[in-house]
């Protein structure tokens, strides 16, 4: 019932935010802070890795959408890594599959940024 946020720099000035745990109304501010900090530092090409996320709700989706909106203003983008079928389903039913690039592994998500 907690979230772990790890940020690491990658090739081509891309940044990877790796999340593990549950993203809900209680834990999502922590995710938001991490993403906001990266953007404030001028990093606009982000991969958010959800492979180790067991649960996400609309608050978590809202944070991802908010991040995407902000980086787009600077010509950047957010690609997601997601393999959990339950979580993929949530992106499906909310129509967010059409807004985010969603990839099966981190390497593909990073490649698609450039």
């Amino acid at each position, binding site marked *: 019932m907690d979230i772990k946020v790890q940020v690491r720099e990658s090739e081509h000035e891309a940044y990877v935010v790796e999340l593990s745990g549950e993203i*809900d109304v209680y834990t999502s501010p922590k995710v938001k802070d991490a993403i906001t900090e990266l953007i404030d530092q001028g990093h606009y090409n982000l991969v958010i890795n959800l492979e180790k996320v067991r649960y996400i709700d609309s608050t978590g989706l809202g944070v991802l959408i908010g991040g995407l909106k902000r980086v787009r203003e600077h010509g950047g983008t957010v690609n997601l890594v997601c393999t959990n079928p339950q979580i993929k389903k949530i992106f499906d*039913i*909310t129509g967010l599959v059409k807004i985010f690039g969603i990839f099966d592994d981190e390497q593909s998500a990073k490649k698609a940024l450039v």
Partner: protein
Amino acid sequence: MNQPVTVPAELDVVELRIPAKAEWVAVARLAVAAVANRLDFSVEDIEDVRLAIAEACTNVIRHATSPGQIDIRCEATLTELTVEVGGGAAVRLRADVRSEDGLGIIIIQSLMDAVEYRAEQSGVVLQMTKRVHAR
């Protein structure tokens, strides 16, 4: 002599009341998932119920005009689970909660078989039903 043959599906009720604060939503999620686990739902169905209830609680927390409690009432029969989520005595929900078509509501509508709003003294109550599908 012609008595109607009705097999009344036994109805069990589980009620939960949590503070309308973000840190307690996980308790509601787990408790309702445990209730759902008693019916013959698939693992995926239980995940659906869990998320729908979390969205309903999150809605109360976001839209309540005063702090208070969230009331959750689960009615379980062999074939369906109905969960009602509403603000407790101290919570007044805004009247326009219904018109909101945020992500949370979209998720609830997609994951549950029936969704209804009911105006009560204490505010709006969201009623959601998930049916056990033959497997």
